[in-house]
């Protein structure tokens, strides 16, 4: 018998379509030939991972249909099998794969739609946290505000796309029930994906507000982040919108690192 790591490596290679001889020798036939058992296992792997991806990217699937999605998923699974035993982590490279493989060329907004769905998935599984309460921000000494570091909520993700990808998302989720059209020429969007409580929310942000949150996420103090966001920024309106969306993490009750 080969050593276990060798057997595992050749098993994985065979599942990905490589040589089967070393693995077949280790499989007991018992009524069903070893090669068929391996084929059944390989088929189950592809189908299960395809189902897993369909659960993470329902709008992509709804947009392009089940057959095209299955073809994309099969190609992705062959190129990028899971690296973790936890399927929740599977699919992070799906959007770049759609770009790189050229499979999404007929639908140019498809990879950004996949990015939005991955951001939704990440927000869904992010750590729970009550968002920063406006009153807690109001309680900060005004003299400390310019140097204040506002951290994004653990679930918050920013996505910028040259397409109206939120409208495409809604159409894809509706699937065959979608009765309308999406105008791809409607222009780009900056989206905030965040889960302030139990529900994941997708909101459009003003580009300057998105730049403000991105600068905060990079650890910049408020006065500097506001300057970074550009002259188009209405700081009061942007902060009010971000606070209402639950985009900021609460201040730590004892760790005062947000203060200068």
């Amino acid at each position, binding site marked *: 018998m080969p050593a276990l790591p060798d057997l595992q490596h050749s098993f994985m290679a065979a599942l990905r379509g490589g040589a089967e001889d070393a693995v077949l020798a280790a499989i007991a036939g018992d009524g069903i030939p070893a090669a068929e058992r391996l084929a059944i296992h390989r088929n189950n792997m592809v189908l299960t991972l395809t189902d897993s991806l369909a659960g993470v990217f329902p709008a992509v699937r709804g947009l392009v249909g089940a057959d095209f999605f299955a073809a994309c998923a099969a190609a992705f699974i062959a190129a990028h099998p899971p690296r973790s035993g936890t399927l929740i982590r599977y699919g992070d490279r799906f959007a770049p794969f759609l770009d790189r493989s050229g499979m999404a060329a007929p639908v140019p907004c498809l990879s950004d739609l996949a990015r939005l769905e991955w951001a939704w998935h990440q927000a869904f599984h992010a750590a729970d946290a009550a968002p920063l309460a406006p009153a807690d921000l109001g309680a900060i000494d005004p003299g400390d505000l310019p140097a204040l570091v506002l951290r994004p909520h653990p679930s918050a993700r920013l996505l910028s796309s040259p397409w109206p990808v939120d409208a495409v998302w809604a159409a894809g989720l509706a699937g065959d029930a979608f009765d309308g059209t*999406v105008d791809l020429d409607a222009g780009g969007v900056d989206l905030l994906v965040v889960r302030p409580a139990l529900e994941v929310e997708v909101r459009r942000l003003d580009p300057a507000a998105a730049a403000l949150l991105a600068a905060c996420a990079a650890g910049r103090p408020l006065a500097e982040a506001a300057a970074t966001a550009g002259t188009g920024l209405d700081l009061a309106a942007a902060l*009010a919108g971000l606070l209402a969306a639950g985009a900021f993490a609460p201040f730590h009750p004892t760790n005062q690192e947000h203060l200068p």
Partner: protein
Amino acid sequence: MKANTLKSTLPAVMVASAVAMAVAAAGTPAKAADKEKCYGVVKAGKNDCATANSSCAGTSKADGQKDAFIALPKGVCEKLVGGSLKPMKKG
């Protein structure tokens, strides 16, 4: 970028007044008081112990992959209008 030692910042008084306005305007973020979290619920397709397929598909030795590359998607994407292959400038 790092060579620039003078960091651009907004004047403190503008930051303070903007924060005061924002706090007054933002109100309280919505609370999910009427919902409770169901622990242990896994999204469909994420339970890797179970075969999520019918026993028919589960015991099939046929490859799950389609033989022919499906070059054109069918589905809702027919309802996307406009949008050349070259992405437009964001606006």
